């Protein structure tokens, strides 16, 4: 679906599970994707930890949001980006980042696009509004 609305970005900068911000930001993403807005999502700083592979919240008794993250593309949240430096600082390999969907034809995992800080900054500057988590 071509996004014709205003450019709106959601930034996720907090680590998952220690607080609910990541989970509730994903609920925002799902709803926003159904509205006429040109939505981008950027994971920066501790937010990139939400994309760490192998998360398992069962032992905490917390439902978690990992299944939702894997469905972002299904829900039309396709412009998803992650900060290269934040990943590197936290020793997460770029190709290990959680998939946010699967390619319809090949079944290959779709991962968030890794961007340099300057690219993210430029993207931020182009937004109408930014929702910060």
């Amino acid at each position, binding site marked *: 679906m071509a996004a014709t609305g205003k450019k709106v970005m959601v930034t996720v900068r907090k680590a998952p599970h220690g607080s609910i911000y990541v989970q509730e930001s994903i609920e925002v993403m799902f709803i926003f994707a159904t509205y006429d807005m040109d939505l981008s999502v950027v994971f*920066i700083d501790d937010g990139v930890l939400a994309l760490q592979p192998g998360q398992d919240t069962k032992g905490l008794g917390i439902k978690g949001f990992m299944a939702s993250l894997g469905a972002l593309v299904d829900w039309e949240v396709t412009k998803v980006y992650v900060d290269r430096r934040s990943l590197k600082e936290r020793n997460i390999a770029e190709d290990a980042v959680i998939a946010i969907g699967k390619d319809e034809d090949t079944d290959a995992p779709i991962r968030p696009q890794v961007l340099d*800080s300057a690219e*993210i900054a430029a993207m*931020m500057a182009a937004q109408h*509004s*930014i929702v910060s988590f």
Partner: protein
Amino acid sequence: MLHTVNKSPFQNSALENCLRLAREGDVILLLEDGVYAAAAGTAKSSLVEQALKRHTVYAIEADVKARGLNNLIKEVHIASYADFVDLVEQHPVHAWL
């Protein structure tokens, strides 16, 4: 762009992270515990001192006064909430929470 920072730099890297992404000419507004970054002579003063080379930096007066900060880095502008509103009128905002 207007970048708002509300956390103390001693306890949180939000200001550092903000300054990494802020572009030349972007404006930084310190509010709530973020105003501690504007205090002179601290272990974290260099963050704002460096930032001032590329950005105008504001600190919300009510937050500065609440915290008893009477020795701020010289070039930091003291801002009222009305000034904050004017800045928002001029720039889209990213809140570095």
